[in-house]
């Protein structure tokens, strides 16, 4: 639910930005320990960095002790002496010294051999697979991020949230942000220019004709109307925000600088997409690839420093991805052809750091001569949905259409796994509630559970259950007859300390 909607439902506010309720401003909600973020992302932000063209994983995270690597790549290799050593057998590309320092500070998690079954070596198909989160032979038309955002903004598209659901730096909108009803992303290169371009356009609600052209018209209007709605907010937040670091003068550096600025300006948009192109290194790979990795490492390292100094590091994580890695054996033109699995990076203060997974097994290649995948890419998405955005594995399953085991990428990830295995709490129904509502919850093991309701000040106003529960699902009726209208939270606390909290709205 979005702020605009619940304000409307409560009838508390007709206009303006300050919502006052029971003497507490909405802003103060964030300080409440039981605050559940309006957009359902817990204030967390994901920055995606797409490395287009198929990044050569073997020359990024180098198996420096593996003779099979050097035998297959007599020229297109990274020498052991030059690689930045991460572990005894693992070296990092020498141009990524920024990433080396992040790794040493446990702010960089490397996940080895990420791919999927029946790998597709077409750039376009494999990119679609990564963006949509599909199986190799399954065709999905929405991005996985779009499905996630739709789940968090159920009244979209009938109303737009106050701030963009996702931002893409660039010009051509990615499939990642295409949802069932169209585009969920706002795409621009520069906040001020965007604002300047939009001013002067008017929202258009004229009904389109019922033809193919009408469908295209609807699409154009949706884009135009969303731009009109968001250009002012984006400019305002960019004006409020700042950068504490000087970013490298590269396209990627510029993109990440804008992202940091918008976040520091207070924009709540939970997902950003940035891109760097040129990883399709079929010929003369060494220099070009080195230059690209350098750009990635430099821009991301500055971004991470900036975010930390701005005090935002607990919120923000950045993940890299690419449609595939490259073939073990080099080709005859000093390059490498399309391959399959490759390492990816997750960066931030909230990651554990280190390397997940083993070195690629170069004795066990597939029929094309490519290393086999160890982790499905959707395990990383699942970890992000669960351990970064703080959602249940059920939601991750809804979005990724299957269960994918999470990986220990984020700090505290294990306990998150155990808690999800133990308890779950659903949104009360109906919500908003006038008099009566039901709260559904479950536990997968026998344990002590406590369920209680609190008000905005954090005061417990009712304890509904406080006892040992057998494994199973429960439905608890709750009466709000005596409660004044307003926002409440209800919480399920398990004996092992795991807790789930959701928001309940009482409207008379």
């Amino acid at each position: 639910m979005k702020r605009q909607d619940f304000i409307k439902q409560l009838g508390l506010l007709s206009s303006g930005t300050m919502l006052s309720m029971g003497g507490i401003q909405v802003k103060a909600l964030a300080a409440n320990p039981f605050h559940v973020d309006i957009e359902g992302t817990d204030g967390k932000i994901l920055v995606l960095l797409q490395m287009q063209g198929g990044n050569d994983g073997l020359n990024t995270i180098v198996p420096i002790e593996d003779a099979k690597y050097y035998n297959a790549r007599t020229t297109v290799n990274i020498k052991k002496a030059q690689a930045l050593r991460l572990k005894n057998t693992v070296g990092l590309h020498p141009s990524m010294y920024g990433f080396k320092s992040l790794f040493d500070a446990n702010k960089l998690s490397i996940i080895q051999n990420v791919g999927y079954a029946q790998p597709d070596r077409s750039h376009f198909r494999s990119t679609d697979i990564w963006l949509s989160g599909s199986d190799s032979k399954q065709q999905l038309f929405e991005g996985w991020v779009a499905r996630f955002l739709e789940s968090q903004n159920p009244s979209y598209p009938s109303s737009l949230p106050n701030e963009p659901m996702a931002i893409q730096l660039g010009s051509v909108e990615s499939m990642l942000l295409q949802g069932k009803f169209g585009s969920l992303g706002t795409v621009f290169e520069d906040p001020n220019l965007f604002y300047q371009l939009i001013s002067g356009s008017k929202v258009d609600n004229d009904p389109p004709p019922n033809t193919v052209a009408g469908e295209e018209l609807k699409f154009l209007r949706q884009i135009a109307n969303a731009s009109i709605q968001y250009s002012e907010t984006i400019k305002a937040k960019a004006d409020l925000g700042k950068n504490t670091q000087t970013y490298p003068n590269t396209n990627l550096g510029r993109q990440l600088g804008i992202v940091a600025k918008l976040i520091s300006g207070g924009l709540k948009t939970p997902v950003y997409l940035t891109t760097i192109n040129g990883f399709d290194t079929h010929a003369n790979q060494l220099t070009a690839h080195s230059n690209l990795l350098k750009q990635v490492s430099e821009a991301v390292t500055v971004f991470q420093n900036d975010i930390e100094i701005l005090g935002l590091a607990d919120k923000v994580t950045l993940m890299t991805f690419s449609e595939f890695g490259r073939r073990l054996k080099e080709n005859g033109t000093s390059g490498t052809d399309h391959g399959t699995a490759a390492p990816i990076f997750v960066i931030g203060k909230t990651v554990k750091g280190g390397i997940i997974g083993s070195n690629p097994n170069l004795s066990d290649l597939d029929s094309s001569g490519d290393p086999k995948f160890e982790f499905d890419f959707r395990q990383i998405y699942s970890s992000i949905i669960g351990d970064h955005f703080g959602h249940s594995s059920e939601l991750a399953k809804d979005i990724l259409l299957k269960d994918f085991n999470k990986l220990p990428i984020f700090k505290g990830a294990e306990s998150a796994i155990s808690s999800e295995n133990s308890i779950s709490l659903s949104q009360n129904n109906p919500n908003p509630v006038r008099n009566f509502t039901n709260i559904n919850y479950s536990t997968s093991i026998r344990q002590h559970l406590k369920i209680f309701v609190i008000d905005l000040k954090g005061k417990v106003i009712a304890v509904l259950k406080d006892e040992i529960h057998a494994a199973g699902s429960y439905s608890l009726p709750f009466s709000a007859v005596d409660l004044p209208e307003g926002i409440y939270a209800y919480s399920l606390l398990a004996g092992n300390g795991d807790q789930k909290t959701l928001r309940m709205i009482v409207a008379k």
Partner: protein
Amino acid sequence: MPIWNIDTAKHLLSRTLFGYTRKDLDYALTFSTLGDFIDNEILKENPIPIAPDAWINEIPIPENATIDGQRYRGFNYWWFDLMLKEKTNMREKMVLFLHNHFTSQRTEVQYPQNMYAQQALFRKYAFGNLRQLTKEITIDPAMLIYLNGNRSKSKNAVPNENYAREVMELFTLGAGNYTENDIKEAAKSFAGWVVNGLEARFDPNRVAIENKTILGKTGNFTYDQTIDILFEQPACAPFICRKIYNQFVTNQPNEIFIGKMAKVLRDNDFNLKPLLSFLLKSEEFYASELIGSKIKSPIELMIGSMKILEFSNPAIKYDDVANSDYAYIYDTSKTLQQQLFEPPNVAGWPGQRDWVSSTTYAYRNGFSDSLINGKRLNGAKIAFKLSALDYSKTFLNSENAIKFIDEVTSLFFPLPLSAYKKKLLLETLLEGTIAENYNTNVPMAELRLQKLYKAMMRLPEFQLN
């Protein structure tokens, strides 16, 4: 055959050309039938244009980026000018279609000479034989550089498989109609070519003499025999026809009709002209459901806007490319994401909804405004500025506000505009007065008309074709 009237004429011109002027439309309607116009104008073989400059025959020099950049600009301007002055002939639209099919990116190819030579092939085969074009493209220097066929070796080496993959996936068959092994085998038949300046040479010493098995056939195939094998596949003709349908009709394929197109293409030995003739004379092409269903490409938007506003003779200035009238069009092609010779990747510009994001939509409106204002967004002057009053006076109904809105909107938009939108536009023009009191002598008429044209071109309907 569909009837020939203003509606079918508007549709045919907007899909086969980069927009049209009122004169083009009037001229088209002087032909007695649709078939007559298509055979004698749209698909006419015109003489090959004079090259942009003598540099096209110079041997490329490495590390010559500044000069090459200027030449690319000149080359771009030259092509813009051919589009603007195409009259009622489809060739340049086919050249762009083929550029977007057999893509090459200048950042990889580098030399404008090679890119020019490749485009000359597209122009030569715009209505010609696609199989033959595919063979020539396979050993075209720009393509050899772009997809790494250049210096690919099969003797004592693994041949580069980039071209082999893309020729199957994107140029002839489509994904799912070949195996990874077909790619590896075909790559062997494409090896052995070395680009040397303006030419590509075959070096037999770089090639292993060996049998290859490609799509079930085995032999020591040469590059052209491999292309023959690809064109023999049942997937080939439908794949190409789907792409043509998508480009010229609508992006939701009608597979039954595409099957008919594929038969025409095969029956005519992969010659494009009979296929285009069949398509453009079909009832399907003029289906009312599909009118206005294409989103204009940036090039269609830019050149089409210049045509409709009658900016007919920009100065190219090959020796002073920064100050060319076309410099603004070139810069805008980049911001609108269709820089010629620089598609986003080997699959080319996907088109339709991919053209439009919140940022490019905004830039499109900024562009149309600029042609009315005579200024870029940053205030710098451009070579084009509409004289709104003079232009409006050339319309039959310029002095009758309501009829004028009808007349001008029917020219600017593919579909009739809703009564509500027309009312809004009328209000923009009248600015508080009543329609009866409007004529081109009212105070501030120039400004009012400027506002009207800006408002019209900012409408989402103006983005449709």
